[in-house]
Structures are given as C-alpha cells and as structure tokens.
C-alpha cells in the first residue's frame, strides 16, 4: 500500500512538467495553431527559470521570467504561423531545434550550479487525508498551481465568453470572423499565454524538480506533451490524467526494479508508450468511426479572410 502511494506521489511529481506543457499546448491548439516546438520552449523556460532564480535568489522571479520568455519565443512561431501563414509543422520543428541550440549555448555558464529552488510545502489539512493527501498535497507550490490551472482551464474553456471565443476561432474561424471576432488577436494571445505556460513546465524542471540546469534536461518531455494533447482530446482534466499516467509508469518501473524483478528493463521502459497507444485505441474504438472528437477543426491551417472556399 505504501508502495502504491509513493508511486502515485512520484507520478504527480514527475508528471507535472509534462502537464504544464500539455496545458499550454492545449490553449495554443484550441486556437487552431499547431506548435511542435515544445521541447525547445521548455528548455528555454528551464534555462530562464534557473538563471534568473540563481541571480536574483528568488525562484518565483525565475518562474515569471520563464513565462515571459516562453511567451516571446513562442510568438516567433505565432508570427510565422499566423501572419506569414507559414507551414506550422516545420516552424514548430525549427523552434525545437532553435530552442535546444540557444538554451545549450546560453546555459554553459550555469552548468554545475545549484539553487535552493522551490521547497516542498505540504498543503495544510488536505495533506492529511489518508491516501489522497500524500499523493497530491505533499509537493511544492508549483504543483498546486498546476492543479489550479487544470481546474481553471476546464472552466475557462467551457463556461467563459473568452474561452468560447477561443474555441470558435479554432473550430470555425470563418464563422468566428463573421461574428466579429479578431482571429489574429485571439490566436496571438493564445500562442503567447500557452507558450508561457509551456515554458513554466520547463522552469519547473530546473527550479523545483531538479534544481539545476543541464543541457537537454527535458529529455523528450515536450514530445510526450504533443502526444498527450491528442490523447487528452484537448481536455485539461484528461491531460492531467495522461501526464500522471506517464510519470506513474516510469516511477512504477523503477520501483519494480528496486524491489527485484527479472523483467528486462528495456521492456519495462516501453510500458508508458504502449499504455498510451492502448488507451488511445480503446478511446477511438469507443468513439466509433468519424472525425476525431474534440479536435479544433482548423488545427494547423492558416486563415484567410478573402479566400473563397
């Protein structure tokens, strides 16, 4: 039982950076923009978060700086995708390459340093609930913020005017335009805010989780987030489940080794990916044949006001 609790707690802990990235990408994709540059943006967020925390002595300053820089960087992709109507797949890939390179270059001065970072702050009262308490409420503040973000986004996308506008822009830009919405402005905002949140995911890694900076420290989490957005069918709550599933399987595999198993490790390492595919198949069969439910219909396509259908 204790083992289960510790695995689930680890799931939450290591799933959080993926969760931030997924949530940020959901916002971006809901507006109709496809962004494959998550790895690069996370790395820039990680470096910014770490360096600013180190220099200023305040981890929250670092996290905010990461948000701002992440937003700015993603706006490049936004500019190419929205105003220049460029190919979003390639722009995203270019962002990954660029972000990886820039963070590695600028980060050289920070290798080997550590910061106190964000400390674990047990959530009063809630963390004493048996079972649930130690799993969810014994982490640092940024993790709690991610919970808040999930709940907030769920509500925002469904129940607020702006949220609905966002979804309209992504699902049917022509109709949204006819309604009088400013497509470009909404998309730019989505890209900026979403990009900032993705960067917070990276900052979490360097400021709260590992409290250090190393090259390529995201280790592919950005790509997992890209997949998780689809896996979650663009729903923030399901995104959380997916992120924790991923973190959990890895924690599970390690604990299995620690307690002794003869299953070859590489096979264990396959588990999170296999599970993702299986769950996805299960969901898709359930939904029956047809268009992928929940995908913003205009995802990846630039918008032209004057274009005739």
């Amino acid at each position, binding site marked *: 039982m204790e083992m289960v609790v510790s695995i689930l707690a680890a799931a939450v802990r*290591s799933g959080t950076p993926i969760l931030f990235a997924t949530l940020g990408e959901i916002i971006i994709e809901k507006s109709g923009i496809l962004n494959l540059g998550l790895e690069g943006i996370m790395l820039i967020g990680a470096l910014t978060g770490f360096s600013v925390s180190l220099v200023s002595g305040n981890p929250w300053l670092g996290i905010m700086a990461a948000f701002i820089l992440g937003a700015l960087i993603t706006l490049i992709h936004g500019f190419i995708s929205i105003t220049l109507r460029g190919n979003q797949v390639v722009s995203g890939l270019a962002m990954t390459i660029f972000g990886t390179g820039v963070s590695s270059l600028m980060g050289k001065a920070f*290798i*080997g340093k550590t910061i106190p970072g964000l400390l674990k702050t047990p959530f009063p009262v809630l963390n004493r609930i048996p079972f649930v308490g130690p799993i969810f409420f014994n982490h640092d503040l940024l993790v709690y913020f991610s919970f808040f973000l999930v709940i907030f986004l769920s509500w925002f996308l469904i129940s607020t005017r702006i949220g609905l506008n966002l979804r309209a822009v992504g699902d049917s830009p022509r109709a949204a335009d006819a309604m009088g919405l400013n497509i470009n402005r909404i998309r730019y905002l989505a890209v900026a805010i979403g990009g900032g949140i993705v960067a917070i995911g990276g900052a979490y890694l360097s400021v709260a989780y590992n409290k250090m900076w190393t090259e390529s*420290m995201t280790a592919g989490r950005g790509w997992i987030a890209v997949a998780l957005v689809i896996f979650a069918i663009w729903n923030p709550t399901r995104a959380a489940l997916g992120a924790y599933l991923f973190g959990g399987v890895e924690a599970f595999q*390690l604990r299995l080794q620690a307690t*002794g198993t003869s299953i*070859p490790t590489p096979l264990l390492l396959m588990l999170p990916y296999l599970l993702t595919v299986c769950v996805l198949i299960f969901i898709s069969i359930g939904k029956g044949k047809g268009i992928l439910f929940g995908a913003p219909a205009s995802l990846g396509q630039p918008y032209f006001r004057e274009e005739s259908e």
Partner: protein
Amino acid sequence: MNKWVWLLILVVFFAMGSVALAFDPIPAEDLKIGFVFVGPVGDGGWSYMHDQGRQAIEKAFPGVTTMYAESVPEGPDCARVMEQFVRNGAQLVFATSFGYMDQVIEVAKKYPDVVFMHCSGYKMADNVGLYFGRMYQARYLSGLVAGSMTKSNIIGFPAAHPIPEVIRMINAFTLGARKANPDARVKVVWLYSWFDPGKEKEATKALIDAGADMIGMHADSGSTPQTAEESGVYVIGYNNDMSSYAPTKCLTSSVWDWSTIYVDIIKKVIEGNWKPIDDWWGMDTGIVKLTSFSQDVPEEVKTLVQEEQEKIINGTWDVFWGPIKDQNGNEKIAEGQKMSDQDILSFSWFVEGVEGEIPVSQ
C-alpha cells in the same frame, strides 16, 4: 521551391567551396591534439573530467594546440570527426568513449603516422594505444565508507547501463561495503541512460522507498546526490566532487584525474617514445582518488580506508583478488587467486551482496 532552384543553389555552393579552398593556409608544425568527447564538456561528469585533463595538457605544454568536439555520438559520426582532426593537422587523437572503438581502428588504418589513444577500449593497432584508470580501486574504498555507515544495511545504486565497466564499479563498491559490513546489500536499478536528471531522481527515490539509507551512483548528473540530500540520505559521489550537490550528505566521491596520464602520453609522443600499449593506470598514479571526507565520517572509518588504500597502492593486495563469490553464493575466484585484467574488463556477473539483474546474451 522547385528542384531547379535547389540545383542552382548546389552549383553555387560548389563554386564557392572550390574558391574557398584556394585561400587555405598550411597548418603549423607544433603538436596538434584532437579530443573526441561523448558528452558535453559541461556535464560535470565524465566528459568534464576529460576536458579538465585536456586543459592540464595546455598548461603543461604551452606550444601545443588542442581541439575538441563534444557530444559526438558513438558510431560512424565519430570517424568523420577524427578525420577532420587529422586533416586539420592533429598528430594525436584521444577518443574518450568505448563506443568509438570500431571507428578508431578504421581511421587509424588510414593514417598510420597519427597516434590514436582509445579510452576504455580493447582493440589496439600499431598506432592505436589504450588508456584507462582503475576506478574500481577508488570505488572499493568508497564502498568501505558506505558499508560502515549504513544502518539499514541497504545501499541503493542507480546505475546507467548494464555494461562491464558499470558492473565492475558496482562489484568493487559492494566488495568494499561488505568488507566493512558483511550484512550490507547493494540494490541496483538500471537507468539505461548516462545522463537523465529526472530519471536519476526517481530512481534514487525508489531505492530510498525500498529501504536504502545510503546511495551510491554511476551516472553523469548531480541529480542523485541532490535527491539524496533532499531526502536526508547519505550519498557517495562519482566522476567529480558531488558535495556541491549534496553539501551535508555527500560522504566522499570517487573521482577521475586524467591530467597525469595525459601529460605522460604527450611527453612520450613529443620525445618519440610512444608505443602502443594498454595503459591501465592504478590508484598509485593519482588517476583515480577519493575526495576529502565529510565531517560525518567517523575516525575509525577513515583509518580503515587509509589502511586498505595503502595495501592497494603498495601492490600487496587488489580489489579483485580472491576469495570472491557471485550473487548465488558460488565461489568464482578462489583464495589466493587474482582475477586477470581481461576478466575484470569483461565483468558480466555480480558479486555476492548485489541485488539486481544483468541481461544475458544467447
């Protein structure tokens, strides 16, 4: 862009390339050395320590020029990197990872006048020599500390890949731990990565959850000691001094110092005395050592380490001299027998006291 555009661009580049060639200067006659690193020099671990060695060369021999390439993947790419070094005038090339082996031999054949030194490999040639350090000796000593100070008798060991080098380290560490404390057990978790701070953290936590109150490590980031410090558990560092990551919990670290062997090799090449040999230097040369102990280490443990270290440096005893039993209790090395270097280099079984699996070949 259509294909004619690409063709046009290609033609232009070719033209520019041949023009560029016309202005190329001739390389200088001073000794030029190339280093191939498998990771980033800033990793604070394996490649970082080699780079420190490279810098030591520059200090010791001011006329020499060094070049390096970092994060070169093991495989065909490094052949090109080494060729580029030679084409840029290198007369000595250091390949600092096992996986470069095939390519070192391949490139060395093409350039018989260039000296190639391969670290941790096993293939030599007329112009290819080997070099390595007996880190296992330092590991053994650090194991003594670990065994002495564990109370739960479970020592956790996040390890990168199940290759002989790592297995050897774990074995040496365990032999030391059990010498100091016959009830100690070492639990191994495989990361399948040299460098993944996230995984290292989770592996450390998993081992702590499984009862470990002492952590060893064989990986390249500072995540393991950091996690140990956070969890209030002692840790033994590796590669580099890990106390910056674990200021109160790092008892000691077994570290590399490549400067002495590098300087020695350069001297031989400059003086013309270089021969292809398998240079596996021991602790007596300073290539491997322990960092200073933390204040938590009691005097009697320090004394024990001192004594064992004396024996190794004097040559009166070494880590892999019998008797040694394997995981299942069978005696593999008898009393009075010494394991050959060949066997030590190809370690494929765990000693008694290690809990973990090694994949088997068929």
